C-alpha cells in the first residue's frame, strides 16, 4: 500500500504550493484596489494570520469536507467548479484509453505475429511516429483535415458524439503507440519461453500456440502500461482540451493558471494527482486478480 504515504505527500506538497507563491494571497483575492483593512479582513477570513501548523490543520479538515477554497476567477467554491468540469474530462479520457488499449493491443499482436515483416515494420514505425507527434500538432492537423477541409466534424470539442471524435483520436494516439510497442515486445518475450516451445513441440499449430498459450500471459504486464498511460493521458487532456476548446478539467487548469487563480490551480492539481493514484491502485488490484501469483500484504 504505497498509496497512503504518496497521498499524504501530495497533500503536503499542494499545501505548500500556495504558500510558496510570490506575493500575498490575501491581497490577490481582495484585488489590487483593496485598502489595508480589507486585505487584513480577507487574511483573517482565509486563516492566513495563523501559524503554519494551524493553517495545515484547517486545510486538511477543509479537504475532508470537500472544501477547497474559493476560486479567484469564477468567484465560486473550487469544489463546485471542479464538479462542473469533471464529467467532460472523465468521458474524454475514458474513451481515449479504451480506444488506445483495444487498438494498441490489436496492433501489437499483429506486429508480433508477423515479426520482421512489412506489417511489423509499418506498425512499429507508425507507433514511434504517434509517440513523437505532439498532441497539439496532431489536433491542429485533424482540425484542418476534418473540420476545415472536409467539414464533417466540428472544430471545437463538446460532450457529443461528433464533438468527441477528434479530441479522443488526438488524445489516444500517443498512448496507442506506447501500448502497441509494449504489447508487441511482451508477446515476443512470452513466445520465447520454454512452455511455449513445449506447446509447439507437441505439435500444436502456431495460431493455437499463440492464442491459447502465449497471448494471455503476455497481456498481464500490458495492464501496468495501460495504467501508467492513463495517467499520462490525463495530463494530456490539458493540451488536447485547450486545442479543441473542450471545457474539461485540463482546459480549466490553463484558464486558472493564466488568471493566476491559485485556489483553483491547487484544487485541480489535487484532483489530477488523486485520479492518478486511484488508477494505480486499481491496476494493482486488477493485477492481483488476474495473476494469482501476486499478493499484497
Amino acid at each position: 500500500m504505497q498509496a497512503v504515504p504518496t497521498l499524504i505527500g501530495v497533500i503536503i506538497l499542494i499545501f505548500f504550493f500556495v504558500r510558496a507563491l510570490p506575493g500575498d494571497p490575501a491581497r490577490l483575492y481582495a484585488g489590487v484596489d483593496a485598502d489595508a483593512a480589507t486585505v487584513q479582513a480577507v487574511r483573517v477570513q482565509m486563516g492566513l494570520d495563523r501559524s503554519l501548523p494551524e493553517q495545515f490543520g484547517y486545510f486538511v479538515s477543509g479537504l475532508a469536507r470537500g472544501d477547497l477554497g474559493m476560486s479567484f476567477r469564477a468567484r465560486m467554491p473550487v469544489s463546485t467548479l471542479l464538479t462542473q468540469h469533471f464529467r467532460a474530462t472523465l468521458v474524454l479520457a475514458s474513451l481515449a484509453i479504451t480506444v488506445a488499449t483495444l487498438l494498441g493491443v490489436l496492433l501489437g499482436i499483429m506486429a508480433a505475429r508477423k515479426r520482421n515483416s512489412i506489417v511489423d515494420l509499418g506498425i512499429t514505425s507508425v507507433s514511434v511516429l504517434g509517440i513523437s507527434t505532439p498532441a497539439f500538432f496532431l489536433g491542429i492537423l485533424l482540425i484542418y483535415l476534418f473540420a476545415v477541409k472536409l467539414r464533417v466534424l466540428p472544430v471545437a470539442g463538446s460532450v457529443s458524439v461528433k464533438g468527441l471524435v477528434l479530441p479522443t483520436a488526438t488524445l489516444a494516439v500517443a498512448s496507442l503507440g506506447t501500448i502497441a510497442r509494449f504489447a508487441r515486445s511482451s508477446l515476443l518475450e512470452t513466445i520465447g519461453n520454454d512452455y511455449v516451445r513445449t506447446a509447439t513441440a507437441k505439435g500444436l499449430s502456431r495460431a493455437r500456440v499463440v492464442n491459447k498459450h502465449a497471448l494471455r500471459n503476455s497481456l498481464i504486464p500490458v495492464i501496468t502500461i495501460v495504467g501508467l498511460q492513463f495517467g499520462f493521458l490525463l495530463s494530456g487532456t490539458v493540451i488536447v482540451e485547450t486545442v479543441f476548446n473542450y471545457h474539461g478539467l485540463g482546459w480549466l487548469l490553463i484558464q486558472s493558471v493564466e488568471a493566476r487563480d491559485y485556489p483553483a490551480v491547487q484544487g485541480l492539481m489535487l484532483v489530477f494527482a488523486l485520479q492518478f493514484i486511484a488508477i494505480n491502485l486499481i491496476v494493482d488490484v486488477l493485477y492481483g486478480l488476474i495473476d494469482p501469483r501476486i499478493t499484497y500484504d
Partner: protein
Amino acid sequence: MTERVAPAKRAKSAFSRSTFGKLLHHRSGSVGLVLTGMFVTLAVVGPWIAPYSPSAPNYAHLAAGSTAEHWLGTDAFGRDTLSRILAGARYSVTIGLAATLIGALVGGSWGVLAGFLGGWFDNLSMRLVDVLLAFPGILIAIGLVTLTGPGVGPVVFASAVFGIPVFARLARGSTLEVKSRAFIEAANALGMQRLQVMGRHVVPQVIAPILVYATLRSGSTLLVASGLSFLGLGVQAPAPEWGGMLSDAQLWLAVQPLMAFSPGVTITLAVLGFNLLGDGLRDVLDPSVRR
C-alpha cells in the same frame, strides 16, 4: 588525480567508438543519429544560416504560402517561417537538451546517493519521488510555471524537474545493482572511504544507463517544453520558439495551413530523432531487451 581520470576516460572512448559503429548499422538508430545530429547542428548554426531576420515583419507578404523567396511561407506579420524555424532551433532544441541534462544530473546524483546511502534517506527520497510522479507528464511543469511565471528560464527549470524523479528512480536502481557486486565488497574490504567507493566505482557504472535514458527522455522533454510554450506558459512571443509558433498559427489555420504545418512537422521530426536514437542506443548497448 591523473590516476583517477585515466581509466574512466579510456572506458568512455571505447564505449562511444563501438557504440557509434553499431548504431550506424542499426536501422532506426542510424536514422535517429542523423536527425538528432541535424537538429543539434541547427541549434548552433540555425540563426546564422536563416535567410531572413526571424523578427522582421514584411507587410507586403502576410500569411503567404510557399514561394521562391519564402520556401515555407510567412506568418501573420509577414515574417519568414523558414528563418523563424532555423532561428528557433536555438530555443527549442537547446531548452529540451538543457532541461534533460539538468534533470539527469540532479536526478541521477540524487538516485545514486539514495541507493548508496540507503536507510532513512533512501526511504524518504523514494517517497518524495512517488509524490512527484503522482503529477504525471506536463502537469508538474504546469504547476511549477504557475509559481515562476513564463520565460525561458522557468521552462528549462520546469522541464528539468519533470525528469528528476524518473532519473532518480533509475539511478537508484542501477546503484543498488552495482552495490551488490563483488568488486564493491572488495573495495570496502580494502578499507576505502565510502564516498571514494561511490565516486570511483559506483558512479562510472551508473552513467551509461543514465545517458541512454537521457537520450530517450530528450524527446519527451522537448514535447513538454514546447507544450508549455504552446499553452502560452513558456517562451513568450516574439521569440521564434516552435510550440509558440504553432500556437500563433492556429488562428490562421483556414487561411494558411503551412504556417502551422512547418513548426509542427519540425517538432515531430526532432522528437522522432531523439526517440529513434534512444531506442537504437538501448538495443545496441543491451541486446537482451527486445522492444
